[in-house]
Structure formats: C-alpha cells, structure tokens
C-alpha cells in the first residue's frame, strides 16, 4: 500500500529510480533525515539500526535489566515499545521489558489512549502497569481542572506525571525507565533553555541518560531519531497508536520554538541534529552553580528544595490555594513549618487525600 501511495503521489520521481541503499527496489519514501530516496525495507533497517547503534554506543542497558517503557499510547512511545521489543529479540539484549502508563484521569483523552496501550500489551506481548493520579495523589486531572481552571493545569500534569512514572517504575522494581523523547523534542528543549537563560538545564537537557545517581535512571533511545521518521515508521508498519491531542491543551506543542524547528528542518534537515550537537558541546563552566539535589522531606522523592514540586502543588490543591508552587520559588518553597504540621495533622484526621502520596513503602 505504502509503495502505491508514495509513487502515486510522486510519480515522476519514483519512476525509473532505485532505492539509494539497496539499489534493487523502487524507493517508497524520501528519508526525512537525509532526503535519500529509499525503499521500505531499507528504511526499516536504517531506522532500527540507528537506534540499535545509539543503544550500544551509549551503553544504555545491561543484560538482565528490567526496563520500563513509558507508554502513553502516542506515536513515539508506541514505536519505542515496538522497536525495543524487536531489537531486544534480534540482538539478544536480555532485557525484561514492560509497559508503564500513567492515567491522569482525563475523560475523552487518556481513557481512549489507554485502550491503545492495552491493545499494545497484547500485540507486543509486553506486560502493562497503569498508575493513576487518583491513586497516587487523590486527584484526577479532571478534578484538578475543575478546581483551578485551564490556567497552569499543565504544570500540575507535568510535575505529577514525572513522579508517577518514577513511582510506577519503583513499584515494579524496574532498573531503567525509557521514554519516547525524540530528536525534535530535544532540539526544542535546547532552544527553549537558551531563550530562558537556564544554563543548568541547558547542560543537562542533551544527556541521553539522566538521573544516574537517583534510584531509576531514565534514558531516551530516540535522542537522534526524527519525529517525522517515527511517524513514517508507525505508518508503514501500521502500528496501532492514538493521535489525539490532550483536550486541556490542544496547542501545547505548537509554540514558537516548535514551529521554528519545523521551518528549519524544511530548509536543512540536519539542523535538528546540529542543535543537539551544539547542546552537547556547549562550554558550560564547572563553576556554574547547579541546584543541589536533596530529597523531599515529605515523600522522599528527589528534590532541590525542602518539599518536592509535586508535594507543594498537592498541598496547594488540598488547601484550596492552587497558586502555591506556580511560578518561581526560591529557598523555602513558600511553606512554613507550622503550616506543614497543621496540614499533616489535618490529613491524618481526614485520613484520605494525602495518604496515597505517602510513599514510605516505595524505596527511594
């Protein structure tokens, strides 16, 4: 089907030409990264081989590790799950893979995408674990939006998701967590950090593995993989993925920077890789002050402040002060001791909302 479609869309080009890699078959596509015209099989091969190379060169995994794949049901994570299980088999990585999903509790979006992940569980034969905001924090995103409106809701969702993935991975005793961040995402982050002047994040954002000193390192095998190629792979392989944007922020990914990167890619495809290379090579002085890493006093999660961001946001939610923790905070999280004491006793009385967040049982 792909062949027919590609050639009918581009009849002049495809006619009489052969795949520039194998030189045998008719090309079915123009590779977004290099603009080479290649056939489908060669595309699968180069796509998978590149990811394999990235995994091997960067020593992302060790034999026998339990690896959680952060699965949202979207294209990136679906392709990641498929390719990783394929490579694990082909190159005998010896990994114990499973899918880990976060249920934010967004009706009409996450419930549907989770159905996709559940189908993937069967299709790829990977066990699936779903952790929900409701269980972890006592709130669903629907409830949060009802409480605070559509402003800043993404801050809550982002902070909570990051922790939820770590907690889910810890529950399942995973050694590593892989996410589907692709080259476009990373290039965008590099640019945003330059625009914001955030030198600490600028130095970290191009690492392929982060949090190695923490309990569960995260890695991004798609660091050098173009978003367009991921879509192409999913399309030709007819992978089952969910492609609707979150109902609460339909335009979340269409910022200036994203648009700029798409324009750049049109002029010079390798610009995305160049941005990542720039990000890796920035001369960041060792004297640059980096935030000190500690642990959250309440839940034990890694945090540079007294309380981790999730606990702070949650506190705001539970006390009806949704602005707490939004925007810049310096030093003391804006929570004083008395408040904290009061809150803890309060939650004990209620015995409800915060308890789910008490994670003494999780070994952080």
């Amino acid at each position, binding site marked *: 089907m792909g062949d027919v479609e590609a050639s009918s869309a581009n009849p002049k080009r495809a006619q009489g030409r052969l795949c520039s890699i194998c030189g045998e078959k008719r090309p079915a596509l123009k590779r977004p990264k290099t603009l080479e015209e290649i056939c489908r099989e060669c595309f699968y091969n180069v796509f998978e081989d590149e990811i394999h190379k990235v995994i091997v060169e960067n020593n992302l995994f060790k034999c026998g590790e339990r690896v959680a794949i952060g699965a949202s049901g979207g294209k990136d994570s679906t392709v990641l799950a498929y390719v990783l299980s394929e490579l694990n088999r082909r190159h005998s990585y010896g990994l114990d893979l499973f899918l880990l999903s976060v249920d934010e509790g967004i009706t009409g979006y996450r419930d549907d995408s989770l159905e996709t992940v559940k189908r993937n569980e069967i299709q790829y034969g990977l066990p699936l674990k779903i952790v929900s905001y409701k269980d972890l924090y006592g709130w669903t995103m629907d409830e949060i939006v009802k409480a605070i409106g559509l402003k800043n809701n993404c801050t809550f969702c982002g902070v909570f998701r990051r922790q939820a993935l770590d907690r889910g991975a810890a529950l399942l005793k995973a050694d590593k967590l892989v996410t589907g961040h692709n080259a476009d995402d990373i290039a965008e982050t590099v640019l945003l950090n330059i*625009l914001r*002047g955030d*030198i600490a994040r600028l130095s970290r954002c191009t690492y392929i593995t982060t949090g190695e000193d923490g309990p569960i390192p995260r890695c991004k095998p798609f660091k050098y993989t173009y978003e367009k190629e991921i879509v192409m792979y999913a399309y030709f392989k007819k992978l089952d993925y969910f492609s609707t944007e979150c109902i609460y922020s339909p335009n979340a990914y269409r910022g200036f920077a994203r648009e700029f990167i798409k324009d750049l890619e049109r002029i010079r495809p390798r610009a995305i890789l*160049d941005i990542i*290379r720039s990000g890796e*090579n920035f*001369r960041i002085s060792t004297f640059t002050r980096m935030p000190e890493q500690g642990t959250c006093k309440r839940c034990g999660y890694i945090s540079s402040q007294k309380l981790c961001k999730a606990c702070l946001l949650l506190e705001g939610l539970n006390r009806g002060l949704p602005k707490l923790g939004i925007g810049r905070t310096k030093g003391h999280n804006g929570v004083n001791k008395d408040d904290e004491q009061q809150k803890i006793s309060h939650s004990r009385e209620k015995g409800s909302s915060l308890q789910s967040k008490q994670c003494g049982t999780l070994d952080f």
Partner: protein
Amino acid sequence: MASCGGTCDFNCGSKEVEEETRERVGRISLAAASAAANAARCSKCGDGDAREGCNGACTACFRAYLFGKFKLAVTSNAMIAPTDNLLVAFSGGPASRVALQFIHEMQSKLVKSWDASNSQALPVFGVGVAFIDESIFSLKQSHEIEKAIENVQLIVSSISSVYKGIHIKPIENICSSDSKDGRSRLSELLDMITDNTGKEDFLQYLRMLSLQKIALENGYSKLILGSCTSAIACHVISATVKGQGYSLPADVHYVDTRWEVPVVLPLRDCLAQELSLLCHLDSLKTQQLLDRPSAGINGLVSSFVTRLREENPSRERTIVRTAEKLKPFCFNKFSANGYHDFLPSRLRPKFQNADNSDSVLSEVLCPICGSPLSEIELHNMRSTEGEARTRAEIFFTHCCQSCCFQILPNGAAAYEKFFSLLPQLMMRRVKDGMLANRSQLREEIKDYLLDDQDDDT
C-alpha cells in the same frame, strides 16, 4: 480620623467620614490628573519631554543612557588604550553609525582635556573608518551605488575632518588586488558554494578578513564593530542551529583577540531598536547599501528572534546572557604582557588576576570561519591529517564541521579548485602552521632519514 477607604467597617457610615472621603478622592483624582500631565515628562530628569520608545525618558537622557552603556563596556573591559589607533567598521547601518558617533565623542572629549592638561602625559587614541563596498551583490544601478558611496564619505567627513583616513575597499579586493580579477574569482568562489546560508556566512567571513587587511595595512591596533545585542542574539541562535555550540562563546564577548588586529564590541549591550531610534532622534544619517534580505537559516533565525521580541522585548538580552554564561576562550580578553599598564593602578589588579589563570591554553581555529575546533573536531582533524596529500586537503582537514557542511564543495577536484580561489590571507592560516610543524619534525629526526625522497613539503 484617617480615611480608611470603602472597605473599612469602622465608622464609615458617618457623614463626617463620607465628606472626608469625598475630599480625599477628589485630591487623588487631581493628583492623577497632574500625573497624567506629567506622563509626558522625562522619568529621569523630569525636565525634558518623554519620547515614545525611550522608556519614558527624554531624548537627552535616552542618549546619555546609551552612551553610558557604551562607556561602561569600554572602561570595564579596558577596550581602548591611549596609544591605540582604532579602525571603526562602518556598514552604513544604524549600529555602526552610533559606534562611530560615540567613539568620535569620546575622542573629542579626551582631546579637549589633553589640550587643557599641563602634563599631557597620556596620548589620545586615533580613529579611522573602514567601509567594505559590497556593491557587486547589489541589484541597484551603478549610479545609485556611486551616490551611496559618496554619501558614506559625506557622513564620515561630516563627523570630523581630522580623521586620518576613511578606507573604502570593495570586498572583491580580498581575492585579488586587481579589481576585475578579484570580481571574477569571488563570483567563481561563491558559485561553488551550493548552500545559501553557507554563501552568506562565507561573505561574512570575507568581510572580517577585508577589515583585518585594512587594519593591518594601515597600522591600526584595534577594530571596532557595531555588533549590538539583537545581532548577537541572532548569532547565538543561528550558531546553535548550525552546530557551532562549542565555538559560540568566542563571538559573544566584548573582546576578541584571536585575530591579528583585536576586535572589540562596545555596543554589545544596546538593542538594535534603541540604536535606530537614537539615529532617528539625533538625525544621524545612515546609508543602507545592500538591499538583499538574508536568506536561508540566517533569515529564518532573524524572523524568529523578531517574533520573540514582539512577545517579550527583553528576550534578546536573555539570549545573549545565556551565551555569556558559557565559558569564554582565552582570547576573549586582552592578555598581552603590559597591556593593562595604561590603567590606573587601582583598576589594574582586576585584569591582571584574571590573566594568569588560563592564558596558556591555545585553540586550533577553523581557517575559514575562525571558530575554535571542539575536541571531536580536533580528533577528526588529527586522524585525517595524516592521509592528506595536497595543500588543499590539509587545509580542509582543519575546517570545522559546520564549514565542511555548508561551505566546502564535494569531491577532490572541486577541493583543489576551491582552494586555489581562496584569498591568500585565508589560505595562509593553515599553511604556516603546517609547514612549521613538518619542518620542525623533520629537523628532529633528520639524523635518521636515509634519503630526501619523502621531503614533499
């Protein structure tokens, strides 16, 4: 009783209070009215009329604010020494026009005080102006171009007639001293560069080379560029996009001594908008010669930065500040022995302490763009250098990844041709180092060499 506004529930119902409140409200509204009238006054001196776009300041204060920034940049980086002979690169645009104006003002003030002083101990720096004529790329008619160049001359001579020189040189002169030959060589060279962005960047490098040549030939000791915050912000983003993250800090600091004639950027802290506004307010004449919009990646980046500025006017400053936090290179300050001797003794330690730290480090520079090579690029260079046979090949192994991609042609034959067309000054950047190295090595091992066959240098 003090009025407590409408929110207080203490005694506020009484008539007396009501009256008092009304009176107070009246006073406030009067004050507000006079504040509105005052809004047109300068927020700094309170005297002059505030101008639009000057952050509420009057023309004089706005001017003083920009000059203050310029002066601070000059003094805090020991940019200009009394013995210097400065060459101001004038493009005809507002930024370099302001640079020219400010340098002139600084000089005339110093000359005045020099005349007045008894000792006349410290000399006053000299100033010259360079204009690179890029009319070969202009679509304008020849008479228009002639007029434009005349205008440039007029602008410079109107500032001061005492200037030692104005140097107007066509850009093709860098390729050959003969103008016609230079023209054909330059267009041939540019035709070989297929990438539009690469072409534009290459021209930029040639412009710098031309300025260096003028400065060297005429005995100037420093080159002053009008690069402003906005231009540097664009450069930060475009260098990132071109994969030049490693060498980026080299171009964003006030001082750059990697060239034979050091380059300084005294307007680094001023925005392009501010500079154009100043030109407008002070009726400083500018002369735009090139009408060609920048293409490719540079054009895209500048429209991106414009959009960002519209969304947040201080974005350009943030971008430059980010780049400033990156570690500078050893050539981003003056480190020659005795350079800071002209400074008052209380300021000297500040510069001298900084000097001793890492002045030993030396960087290998790309012969085309002059950016320092990253570790990976150095590694690649060393591994391919041995295989290079011809001078052209050796030259190209020294180029940075970005130049390799967007400027160098493909294929060995094209390499040779491209190399043969390059300006001598650019070619020499590699040859000197390489030959010195090889002959040095040969000297070391000559006792063990049996014949002279391999002497291919």
